[in-house]
């Protein structure tokens, strides 16, 4: 019983962490952050399974994580109002060629990263962008200006 409870607590903690670090860190992992993520996984494992070596223990913890993930996605589908809390909300970074500096500051998104994303989408100048949206998964969607 303890194992399932520990797994559920750790799931909630990991969800909180991913919501707290923000979208940018999720979308763009540097090599260091990737190593940090793997190390975090190891630390989490010790906290959840402790000295349980059994196969059934592994199945229980992975099963608990999987069921809670399904529950989260069901809640966001069934109750759309919960989506901003559970998944976050997309935010506008550029509107009609104008960069929303305050939003960049809130999201801790450097201008260089926005420029890089724009280059990858084929933009030479942000003035050509109608809308740039930072999605909940950390990626940036661009819309061309029609004029």
């Amino acid at each position, binding site marked *: *019983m303890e194992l399932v409870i520990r797994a559920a607590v750790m799931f909630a903690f990991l969800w909180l962490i991913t919501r707290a670090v923000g979208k940018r860190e999720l979308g763009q992992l540097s090599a260091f952050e990737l190593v940090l993520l793997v190390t975090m996984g190891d630390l989490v494992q010790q906290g959840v399974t402790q000295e349980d070596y059994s196969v059934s223990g592994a199945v229980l913890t992975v*099963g608990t994580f999987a069921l809670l993930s399904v529950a989260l996605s069901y809640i966001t589908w069934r109750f759309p109002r919960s989506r901003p809390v559970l998944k976050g909300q997309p935010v506008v970074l550029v509107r009609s060629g104008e960069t929303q500096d305050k939003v960049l500051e809130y999201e801790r998104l450097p201008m260089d990263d926005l420029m890089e994303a724009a280059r990858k989408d084929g933009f030479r100048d942000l003035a050509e962008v109608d809308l740039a949206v930072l999605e909940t998964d950390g990626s940036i969607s661009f819309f061309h200006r029609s004029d």
Partner: protein
Amino acid sequence: MADRLPPTLRSVRDDNSVRRARNSRRAGLILLALFVLAGLTGFLGIRTASVTGEADGYRMTVTHAQVTRAGIAVPFHVRVAHAGGFDGPLTLAISEGLLERFDLQGFYPNPSAETGTADYVYYEFDPPPGDVFELNLDARTAPDQNGSTTVYRTALLLGDRPVTDVSFRLWVVP
């Protein structure tokens, strides 16, 4: 109909097969939920039980793990009560096979002497003050000790005289 679809769309599923896939996923999730529920209710360990043996005014209760998993701590507690206290040392004979399934960390209290045969390990303890003797075993389930329907015994001896004994099983979930 699939032949009429463009090559990139031939593997795209229609409504019926999507429903079938959804039903299969639901069945899998229900199985998973049942397994997690079994873990949550303690069905997969750790479950404890107590057995009591009584003779000649001596009452021995052994609290033991009934279901456990590799690596986790297993309770093993022996309580011997006798009105009027104990005149001399008491000996506990524990199935050797049971001890093999544990990673032993220690006894509380430590035995004053110990010996063994092929089937049993004999631990002798000094008589405690008062009417009750209590023993705790600090142990974890050893890895690779799954299953088993063997019956294990713990017996109380005073000198060489067997007084009472209890038997139980231990199931280690893989």
